[in-house]
């Protein structure tokens, strides 16, 4: 019995994709993230929930060093991706972001054709040897983004002409095209209507097969629907982290309970 748990633990350790320990983030004088430590598993959807301004998006943006683009932001602590410190001086944030893709709150297709939107990443990183290969990557990404059938006849129409839900799936497909290992999604459905939201959620569930997905969401129902692990943030602290079922049915912390029952946030 004891041996079994040990083996399981080792297996779980091997599955861990991202390890954050003692992460602190300051925006100027504002202490946005306070000593957050979390292990994020591979091939799992992890949801970050919490009230507005609790730091969940900030923490998400630490995972691919997007905060580097903000002058006043300072990050300390350690974040390991596959055991390697991503804040190490030798790590190129540009390379890191190719490995850790990101989908944003508002769909942000480039003012280019659908094809060029998808081909953007592969072209930058030189993932294809010729046009045929690139075509292949584009088709595969669009298929995995669950939007191929809707756009296959108008690959050269501008990506901005799609509907909101299609644009967001295009952005997800665009992130997939660079073959990342981790997909970060910052409230990917907050600008979408219920039908588009359902499509994107279904897509997220499929993506779990091959990626480590981290999603920030305002909607607790969404977290409950799509994630296996949930982390609850409050005022810059990671209050509770565990299996989604447990967080929603039997939270350990009072604050978590208050939040999921709608008393705070």
């Amino acid at each position: 019995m004891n041996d079994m748990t040990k083996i399981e633990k080792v297996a779980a350790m091997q599955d861990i994709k991202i390890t954050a320990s003692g992460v602190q983030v300051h925006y100027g004088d504002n202490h946005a993230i306070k000593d957050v430590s979390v292990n994020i598993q591979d091939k799992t959807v992890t949801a970050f929930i919490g009230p507005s301004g609790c730091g969940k998006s900030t923490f998400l943006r630490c995972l691919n060093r997007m905060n580097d683009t903000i002058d006043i932001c300072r990050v300390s602590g350690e974040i390991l991706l596959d055991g390697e410190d991503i804040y190490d001086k030798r790590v190129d944030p540009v390379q890191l972001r190719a490995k850790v893709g990101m989908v944003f709150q508002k769909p942000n297709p480039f003012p280019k054709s659908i094809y060029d939107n998808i081909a953007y990443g592969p072209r930058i990183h030189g993932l294809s040897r010729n046009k045929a290969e690139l075509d292949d990557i584009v088709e595969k990404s669009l298929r995995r983004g669950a939007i191929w059938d809707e756009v296959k006849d108008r690959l050269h129409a501008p990506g901005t002409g799609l509907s909101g839900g299609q644009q967001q799936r295009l952005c997800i497909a665009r992130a997939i095209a660079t073959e990342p290992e981790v997909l970060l999604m910052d409230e990917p459905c907050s600008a979408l209507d219920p039908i588009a939201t359902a499509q994107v959620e279904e897509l997220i569930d499929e993506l779990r097969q091959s990626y480590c997905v981290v999603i920030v969401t305002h909607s607790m129902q969404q977290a409950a629907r799509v994630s296996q692990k949930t982390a609850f943030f409050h005022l810059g602290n990671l209050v509770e982290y565990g299996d989604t079922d447990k967080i929603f049915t039997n939270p350990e912390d009072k604050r978590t309970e208050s939040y999921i029952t709608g008393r705070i946030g």
Partner: protein
Amino acid sequence: MSALWLLIIILALAATGFILGRGRAVASVGGDRRKLHSLPNYYGFNVAMLALVPALLVLAVWVVIQPIMINANVSGHIPDALYSDAGQLNLIMSDVNRVADGLGDALRQGVITAEGIHTLDPETSDLRALLGSVGVAIGSDISADILTAARLLRDQSTTGQRAMTFVVLVVASLGFLAAMRMTSGTFRARNTVEYGVKLLLIGAASLAILTTVGIVLSLIFNTISFFGMFPAADFLFGTTWSPEGRGGSEHLGILPLLWGTLYISFVALLVAVPIGLFAAIYLSEYASRTTRAFAKPLLEVLAGIPTIVYGLFALTVVGPLLVNVFGADGLGWMQGARSVMTAGLVMGIMLIPFVSSLSDDIINAVPQAMRDGSYGLGATQSETVRQVVLPAALPGIAGAVLLAASRAIGETMIVVMGAGAAARLDLNPFEAMTTVTAKIVSQLTGDSDFASPEALVAFALGMTLFVLTLGLNILALYIVRKYREQYE
């Protein structure tokens, strides 16, 4: 009474109207301002407005029209024998005006009495010396005809002034009284004042538009009268510009000038567009907030330097510098300091803040989400700028460049000082050439007859420039507007 005094009187009337109207409105509701339809000040403004505006309009129109009508009337009294064409009549009329003014001055200084003006006889008294003693110099002796006309002009002006004073005061009082009668607690003064404000704004807008129309019309009519004297085909397609030749052998072909204009503008844009654009990219994408805070205003100082200073810079610094390198001692391509290159380089420097400031605004308008999207895919900063930001901003940047181009085409002082005066069709950028604008200056600053083709050609040149820059501006606006919402 002069127009200035009249103005002061109606302003005083309006001010009184404000106070009285306000008081009357408050009194009409027994001092309880809550019962008024509008705030008390609106009643005051209403009275002031009705007293002031119609009277001012009458005053303005009268001041413009009176001299025109009196001039027309008096010139009708000048014997036909004295002049043969409209130009001579104009000269005579300006003499008449000067004499009339002089008589007025003399009267004011007490050199002559009102009686004396009527009994003056040019045969017996030295009128010229008399006017000279009050500071009005007359070129020739004054004939009886001119004196009569001047007297007539004075009399009519005095009558006109009196009539104007009377009419303006009556209009002001009528407006004042009518507004006072309207004023009562239920009168909607607020709405009336609002309407008045709207009319004022419309007036300002239409004045600006009418002025433009007026300028264009004057260009068109003068151009037409130029083409009446000079064949249009020779002007538009002639390759020689030598206005000095008198008579039929004159060459007024615009092509060398147009070539010079376009060549210099091209060189200027070649300098301004890359530097301005790169500066804009640095400022908007790379520079830290503090750098941007002092670098951008500093760059825009360039835009505040008067073009004549740029001209000096071209003539005294850039020109000699170029001669050192490309002149007889160097490569031998350049004859003097003035050349297409000199003017083009300096004009390019002048245009840098134009391009950079406009492009910077446009680049900043590209949503941050675009950049985030690109960084999120692992693109570097320059890849993001090249492949996402610039394509998104391109229409706006094209618009900025076209605006800079129309600015370059219309530029005058730098060209006058830096490019020389020789109209030439040449490919060598180190040759002196000249532009349309520079030639407009030289055609009109001489002492040539205003009705001759040499002078009127300036209007045709101006018209050409106008059409050119207008076309560019319309194209720029069209491009900017067409693609503006692309990334929304």
